[in-house]
């Protein structure tokens, strides 16, 4: 770095520390960042607590089943418990298993859709669709307001900070009458502006990175295999995003208009990227791919056989079900035994098989919507970054759709476990309790290609803005 650049930077530093307003703004942003980290943590901690509570509930439930095998059954309540524990005709619809999607360590930094979707389910062998669509309790007013998490601070507030620091980089000189002084120097005015922006870029991006590191450290072990790549992506996202806004400001400045004009244009662009583009895309996707959950609502109805005492009806239902599950077909005498339970189990399983198509079709529609919107993310680097953050923190739509698919498999495991015992008339033994179905989250491989392209989109936008600004600046 030559001496002139050094001198310029030195004076930038002096004017920066003298400007109390700017220092206060940086401090305020830092405090907002800390609050956001705290808030995100408290939200996700509350979810973690819920997960502990429900896991405990499940432990209590199953240990009471286990305990009923030990010792003599003295009271009727004990006998009842043992029946539920050992007789498949009761157990299949009473034993409830939790399928839990634990939060990623960084979910606290980008809550995404995690406050909207369910992250745990209690499943029994009953119809899946009767159990799948219940919502978690939430205050819709707060859902609408959204979360003040770190992703919000970085995506919404940092561009504003950049605007406030840079919008008058050139125009202020003109307005204060110092421009002629600068013009007689040996360095070009363009270079001075660039150095000035670089100076602020270092400060503001530095602050964004500092808050990010605090957040990343506070939320989990950075070196953990689950966290390493997400942390790197997060950091890259932050740097690219800041670079984009600085490049944009540089472009605005290069037109050499008045401070007020620059501020208006910058505020207008902020509005465009953070409100107009996403709001417009959302409304277009809603009307372009209209989706009505009314078709799914019907699936949640709890129906049963017309008459549980009608043997013919029961047999018919059981036979139809067994044609789907020939492995469960036991001898005719076995079907006779416990017939109502078998018929009801067969009935709900058939219902799921029949409505599966409807659910799949619906989910495909949701995916179609999400694909369509993704195609337009490049229009707004803010939307792009929000999506990236949600992806990294596993709080995006895809994660929850995956979870739903995993639930379907898990429900299959549960019914397999109980139906085998029910249809073959095997009582549930104590040993079976060490072999209960358990929920496993399917391994998700991070989509590095997707991440790369989404970073590249913002990067290219930044580069274009910068280059146009550079040429414009040079030509004047």
């Amino acid at each position: 770095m030559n001496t002139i650049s050094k001198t310029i930077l030195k004076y930038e530093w002096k004017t920066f520390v003298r400007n109390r307003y700017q220092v206060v703004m940086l401090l305020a942003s830092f405090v907002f960042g800390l609050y956001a980290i705290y808030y995100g943590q408290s939200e996700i901690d509350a979810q973690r607590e819920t997960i502990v509570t429900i896991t405990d509930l499940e432990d209590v439930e199953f240990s009471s089943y286990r305990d009923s095998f030990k010792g003599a059954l003295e009271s009727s309540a004990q006998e009842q418990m043992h029946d539920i524990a050992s007789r498949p005709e009761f157990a299949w619809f009473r034993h409830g298993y939790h399928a839990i999607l634990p939060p990623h360590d960084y979910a606290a930094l980008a809550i995404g859709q995690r406050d909207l979707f369910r992250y745990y389910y209690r499943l029994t062998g009953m119809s899946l669709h009767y159990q799948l669509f219940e919502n978690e309790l939430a205050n819709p007013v707060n859902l609408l307001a959204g979360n003040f998490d770190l992703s919000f601070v970085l995506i919404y507030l940092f561009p504003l900070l950049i605007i406030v620091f840079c919008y008058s980089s050139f125009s202020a000189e003109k307005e204060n009458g110092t421009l002629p002084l600068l013009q007689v120097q040996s360095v070009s005015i363009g270079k001075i502006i660039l150095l000035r922006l670089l100076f602020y870029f270092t400060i503001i991006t530095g602050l964004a990175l500092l808050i990010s590191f605090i957040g990343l450290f506070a939320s989990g072990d950075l070196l953990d295999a689950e966290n390493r790549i997400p942390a790197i992506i997060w950091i890259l996202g932050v740097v690219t995003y800041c670079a984009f806004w600085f490049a944009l400001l540089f472009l605005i400045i290069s037109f050499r208009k008045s401070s007020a004009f620059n501020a208006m244009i910058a505020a207008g662009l902020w509005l465009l990227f953070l409100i107009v583009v996403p709001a417009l895309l959302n409304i277009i996707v809603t009307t372009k791919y209209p989706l009505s959950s009314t078709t799914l609502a019907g699936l949640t109805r709890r129906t049963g056989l017309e008459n549980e005492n009608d043997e013919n009806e029961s047999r018919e239902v059981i036979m139809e079900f067994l044609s789907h599950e020939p492995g469960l077909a036991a001898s005719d005498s076995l079907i006779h035994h416990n017939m109502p339970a078998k018929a009801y189990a067969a009935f709900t399983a058939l219902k799921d098989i029949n409505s599966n198509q409807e659910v799949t079709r619906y989910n495909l529609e949701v995916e179609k919507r999400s694909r369509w919107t993704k195609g337009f993310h490049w229009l707004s680097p803010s939307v792009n970054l929000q999506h990236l953050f949600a992806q990294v923190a596993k709080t995006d739509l895809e994660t929850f759709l995956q979870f739903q698919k995993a639930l379907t498999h898990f429900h299959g495991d549960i019914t397999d476990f109980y139906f085998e015992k029910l249809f073959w008339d095997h009582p549930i033994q104590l040993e079976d309790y060490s072999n209960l179905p358990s929920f496993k989250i399917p391994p998700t491989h991070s989509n590095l290609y997707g991440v790369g392209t989404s970073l590249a989109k913002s990067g290219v936008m930044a580069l274009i803005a910068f280059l146009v600004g550079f040429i414009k600046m040079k030509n004047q």
Partner: protein
Amino acid sequence: MSKLVRIAKNEIKIALREKLVVSLGVLISALLGIALFAGYLSYKQQERTIIRTQDEKRKEWLGQGDKHPHIAAHYGTFAFKPKTVFSMFDFGLDTFTGTSVYLEAHYQHEFMFRPAQDHSSMIRFGELSGALVLQVLLPLLIIFLAFASFTKERESGTLRLLISQGISFRALAYGKILAYLLMLLVLLTPFLLGVILLSQSGVDSDALLDMGTRLLFLLLLYSSYLFLFISFSVWVSLKSATGRNALLTLLTFWIFFTMLMPKALANMGESFYKLPSMRLFKTQIQHDIDNGLDGNTSRSVRMAQLEKEFLEEYHVDSIQQLPFNFDGVSMQAGEEYGNKIYDHHLQNLRGIFHKQNRLGSIGSLINPYLAIQHLSMGLSGTDIHTSMHFEDEVEEYRRNLVKRMNDDMAQNSKYGEFYEYKAGKSLWEGIADFSYRSPTAIKAISNYKVELASLMIWISTILVLLNQVDQKKKTPL
């Protein structure tokens, strides 16, 4: 008066020269048009599906064949949340409240399917609606229009000239305010006509009561809100030394009011008053049903008590001798006990909602954006109160349906019989179809007294401030 008009005329001429302002104005009208059109489309799509599906469910209910009333009560039916006409203007909470619920005996299901669940996380940026444009984007246009209204005159020295000609600051300020109001009026008239036209045509049956009054209130509220923003911007310009300062001050207010504060308040509410999880909520309800609200009247104790009461009342020794099916009576008693417990827990839950939302309500006293947001949702029938009112009506309907089934079972079947007794279509027809009517406009607005007070306080404050501008040493030249 003519002075005022002259000032206004001049101001409009100047404003129309600003290309940036004009293009933002054009953009906003375009966005308003798109918002209204898309809102209308989405309203129509939803309304049609809901009416169709509700019809289907009604047919299913009527055509369910002969069966035992209790099985019919489990077969149940569905209720779908109707879209209100004004939801095409203000989506409010519609994206985040459940849209349908399954109604059956014994259980209060919660509303399912929040439309936001069918979107990627981009939905959290918000959706383009007329309300969003008027509440958030239009104030920005106002800021751009008005921030330089005085500073420019001051910086170019024309302010001294004007004042020396005997024009008061007050007259100048009102002249400028008038000019901006007129410009907004021109900008908004097509949109306004669109809203009126669309909300009058093609709406056969709407859940919203008092449409006219609601529209009038909305008009009044938005006019006050925009007037407030204009006057405030002009006042800030009047008090600022440079245009740059005025602009920065106004933009800071705008960001703070529309972005930071609403989110921060909602989040604080969430942190201060924690909601239980659904699993815990349901577990507690089940626990209380099993053990009684006092913790030691189990279901069997309650049933034994009920049996005793009836045997004594009818002077018989066994329930078989009762002139009706005791199963039906006990079923209904169980239902009512369950309802009592559910109401108790729901009240607690709503108490938490209420406390959480109260923060936003109090916040509206300093933030007019929050005030207009709440009032607008309330009048459009897309707020939390209408949503809860709807839920209550649905629950009432469910209870009535289940009671009718239980009563029929008690009256027409014998104790110990189940599959032997079948009721038919005449019973199903006895249950009227569910149709929803919202609370009246006055009722809707009465939930937002604090918000109304906020707007009034803001407007009177700004009027007082504007009236004081001519006092000596208060305003820089």
